[in-house]
């Protein structure tokens, strides 16, 4: 290709190899083979063997495997279309196939906002390799040099002669050629790519709007039964007496099965309890209602959210484990002209994907076939194998659409339930969680408490910043001894840029009494709320513009170093992603411009701001609030500017950010899960409300044009919303809300 300029990424070419998988499958079939090193970094031992990624059939149909789970981020469009775009395919002649759980795909854990970051280069390379082989096949047929041929619109063209040959008619000849090495494959210049010129089609749009998309809850097999499980109200509880006589009398109920008792650490094990297996969901639900079960609650029965909040408050008012330290913060606070202090609190949250957990399993003799809406197919495969005493290779796991994931569907507990119950019933069994099950038996987002103290000198300059956090760690789900946040769990706190010469961050004790799990953007919901609310408090304490104070606290444009932040090494800084305060400042300044920040403040409008870096992306938000006719606070507008580096599919990045605004408002206004007597008190969307359409503000999104490396899109929009809202509410009402959720305080 004469126009091609970009060589394939050399680092990438050592990690992944494109290989031919041809012959019997017909046409040109290319597979990817990951290096043993890459596979070793992934999810355990994996075969160093290729797997089908793209097929160009003799009929011209291009089939591309998507190995990442689709949960609303549009990955089944974004990644396969990177390949198709690089190839020069007609988007109408594509078929996207969802990959099963298979270690040969490398990492399939769709979590942490890194699908595009990790697979963009792989998709480009696979598409360019296929294109190069098709061009070589055409060159041989026409006896012309391959490098003058171009591929677009599903055909190879010779501009010199005007000849063209469709991909389908070249596929067999291309399959007979050697696969070029990555170093010899040229990528297209970006300007040639459709994604640079406009919006990509929406692969699954038609299936979504006609009810044809098949989610985990939708798969049906002949002879299939449906199970609903009565789980212990308290984590670690177990049934002491089960009377299933009335349940078995419900028409349609086939069997009542006791699941194995749970024991710590939680991992992805089912919680235990009693399952009712029936011909259909309604009979299973009625059967469960008819069960009589007595429980022994176990040691977590003492868990009480009111008392726990007090325990966390006590914890953050005493020293904890030092996370990062620069200078002598205690001396700097003692010598400050003014000290500003505040405490922040937030509750447990739960994911509530619109599709509650559901999975179908068919356990056979030495095998199990599973259909599941999972974010982490290979872990689910392993967990099912472990529970049934099989090898992972004996478990076939098909990934369905996910009706929302948000981290809940990374956990395989519900999938293991289906497998165990299928084995017990000797039939395919579909487990259906009700919404009450989902809310009462989740992997909860951590509650948390913070205490922040800052010292200002006589010129109101920041001279000291001490932050203490207490929150139950996700680590406790895997290691019962983990009792405070550490390492990656500190997320944005690990490298929050601060100009203060004395800084200390501490993590304080907070043992877990429920299963703690990651939820969209994870602890950064907590960390960003505390840090960015506190910046608002510094502005209030000094009578200054909150945007100016925020920029001053962050300091000048620079790349952070481990030394500056006071740690041994930077935590959120893979190669090419060193934290860049300049990019953070830019999104803050840009969101201020876009929202008319200065003019709004001059006009007396209530606006709040927050800036944040997470998942390697830079985000800033402005929220505008006002009183409605009944003098209730209403949210009018949200502006959000993100710099996620390059994007593969701008419209889906935008939709993720739009959704993040709503997700952030839901947790800020309503997010509250509480325990009493060890059991979760909330039940359904009446006691765990979410933002509805009439509460959704006008949302204005801007994606900063960037040539920086791809970063996260699904999660980083969430954390700045709550603090920006808290800061806006303060501007309107003069009331500083230091505890989420806000809805009750706003009505008072």
């Amino acid at each position, binding site marked *: 290709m004469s126009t091609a300029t970009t060589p394939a990424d050399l680092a990438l070419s050592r990690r992944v190899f494109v290989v031919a998988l041809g012959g019997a499958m017909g046409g040109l079939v290319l597979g990817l083979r990951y290096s043993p090193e890459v596979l070793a970094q992934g999810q355990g031992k994996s075969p160093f063997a290729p797997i089908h990624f793209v097929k160009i059939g003799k009929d011209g149909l291009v089939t591309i495997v998507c190995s990442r789970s689709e949960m609303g981020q549009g990955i089944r469009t974004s990644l396969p279309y990177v390949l198709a775009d690089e190839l020069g395919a007609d988007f109408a002649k594509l078929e996207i196939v969802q990959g099963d759980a298979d270690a040969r795909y490398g990492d399939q854990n769709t979590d942490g906002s890194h699908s595009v970051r990790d697979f963009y280069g792989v998709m480009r390379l696979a598409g360019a390799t296929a294109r190069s082989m098709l061009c070589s096949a055409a060159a041989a047929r026409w006896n012309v040099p391959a490098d003058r041929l171009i591929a677009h619109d599903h055909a190879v063209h010779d501009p010199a002669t005007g000849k063209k040959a469709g991909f389908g008619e070249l596929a067999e000849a291309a399959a007979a050629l050697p696969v070029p090495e990555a170093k010899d494959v040229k990528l297209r210049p970006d300007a040639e790519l459709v994604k640079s010129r406009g919006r990509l089609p929406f692969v699954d749009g038609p299936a979504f709007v006609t*009810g044809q998309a098949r989610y985990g809850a939708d798969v049906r097999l002949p002879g299939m039964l449906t199970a609903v499980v009565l789980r212990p109200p308290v984590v670690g509880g177990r049934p002491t007496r089960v009377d299933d006589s009335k349940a078995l009398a419900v028409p349609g109920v086939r069997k009542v099965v006791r699941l194995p008792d749970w024991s710590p650490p939680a991992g992805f094990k089912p919680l235990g309890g009693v399952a009712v297996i029936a011909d259909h969901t309604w009979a299973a639900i009625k059967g469960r209602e008819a069960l009589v079960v007595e429980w022994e609650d176990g040691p977590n029965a003492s868990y009480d959210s009111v008392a726990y909040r007090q325990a966390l408050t006590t914890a953050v008012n005493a020293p904890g484990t030092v996370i990062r330290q620069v200078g002598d913060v205690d001396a700097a606070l003692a010598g400050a002209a003014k000290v500003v202090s505040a405490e922040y609190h937030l509750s447990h949250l739960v994911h509530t994907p619109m599709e509650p957990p559901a999975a179908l399993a068919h356990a056979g003799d030495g095998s199990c076939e599973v259909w599941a809406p999972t974010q982490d197919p290979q872990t689910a495969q392993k967990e099912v194998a472990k529970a049934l005493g099989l090898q992972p290779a004996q478990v076939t796991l098909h990934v369905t659409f996910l009706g929302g994931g948000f981290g809940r569907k990374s956990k395989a507990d519900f999938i293991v339930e289906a497998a165990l119950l299928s084995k017990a019933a000797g039939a395919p069994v579909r487990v259906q969680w009700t919404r009450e099950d989902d809310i009462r038996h989740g992997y909860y987002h951590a509650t948390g408490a913070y205490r922040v103290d800052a010292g200002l000198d006589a010129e109101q300059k920041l001279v000291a910043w001490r932050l203490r956090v207490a929150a139950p760690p996700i680590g406790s789900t895997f290691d019962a001894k983990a009792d405070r946040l550490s390492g990656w769990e500190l997320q944005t706190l690990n490298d929050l840029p601060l100009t203060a010469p004395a800084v200390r961050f501490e993590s304080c004790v907070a043992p877990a009494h429920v299963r703690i799990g990651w939820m969209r953007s994870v602890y950064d919901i907590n960390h960003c709320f505390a840090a960015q609310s506190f910046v608002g408090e510094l502005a209030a304490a000094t009578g200054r513009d909150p945007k100016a104070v925020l920029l001053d606290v962050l300091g000048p444009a620079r790349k952070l170093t481990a030394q500056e932040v006071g740690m041994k090494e930077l935590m959120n800084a893979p190669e090419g992603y060193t934290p860049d305060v300049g990019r953070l400042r830019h999104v803050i300044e840009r969101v201020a411009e876009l929202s008319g920040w200065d003019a709004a403040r001059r006009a007396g409008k209530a606006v709040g701001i927050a800036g944040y870096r997470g998942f390697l992306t830079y985000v800033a938000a402005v929220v505008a609030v006002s009183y409605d006719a009944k003098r209730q606070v209403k949210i009018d507008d949200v502006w959000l500017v993100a710099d996620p580096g390059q994007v593969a599919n701008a419209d889906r990045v935008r939709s993720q950010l739009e959704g993040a605004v709503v997700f952030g408002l839901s947790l800020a206004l309503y997010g509250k899960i509480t325990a009493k007597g060890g059991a979760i008190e909330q039940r359904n969307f009446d006691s765990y409300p979410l933002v509805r359409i009439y509460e959704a503000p006008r949302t204005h999104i801007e994606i900063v044009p960037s040539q920086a490396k791809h970063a996260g899109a699904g999660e980083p929009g969430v954390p700045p919303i709550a603090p920006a809202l808290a800061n806006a509410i303060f501007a309107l009402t003069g009331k500083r809300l230091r505890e989420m959720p806000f809805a009750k305080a706003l009505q008072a």
Partner: protein
Amino acid sequence: MSSLVLNVNGVDHRIEADPDMPLLWALRDLLGLTGTKYGCGQALCGACTVHLDGMAVRSCQTPVSAAAKQKITTIEGLSEHGDHPLQTAWVEVGVPQCGYCQPGQIMSAAALLDAKPRPTDAEIDTAMGGNICRCGCYQRIREAVHRAAAAPKGGAR
């Protein structure tokens, strides 16, 4: 158990069911029409919305005995070729993220457009207030309803 006839998308189906069984489970588990979704079971989220004689109802709280005498329309029967103006607009605007709540959203919006062919934002917010979207697609839902309302009449219905 009783024997009932459900008229769904113009076709009669005879089912044997507890008369209290919610229409949702009859559609999904007895008739295999899985386009109608379970989200809460308490008429709080709207994922299960279908039409009974053209009115949007929550099928999770509608007993089959009450639905048996009426014309039931589900997402599978909203249009013959998936080209109801709302379905077209939903794809063009790129409304869905995970897509799970969208059948319910579209059925609510279709009933709204039947009653109010040119709704305002406020009317959309009122009519769609019972449908939760956890992905947060609300702004695009408003845009897509307006687009469908402005689409030329005729065609799919």
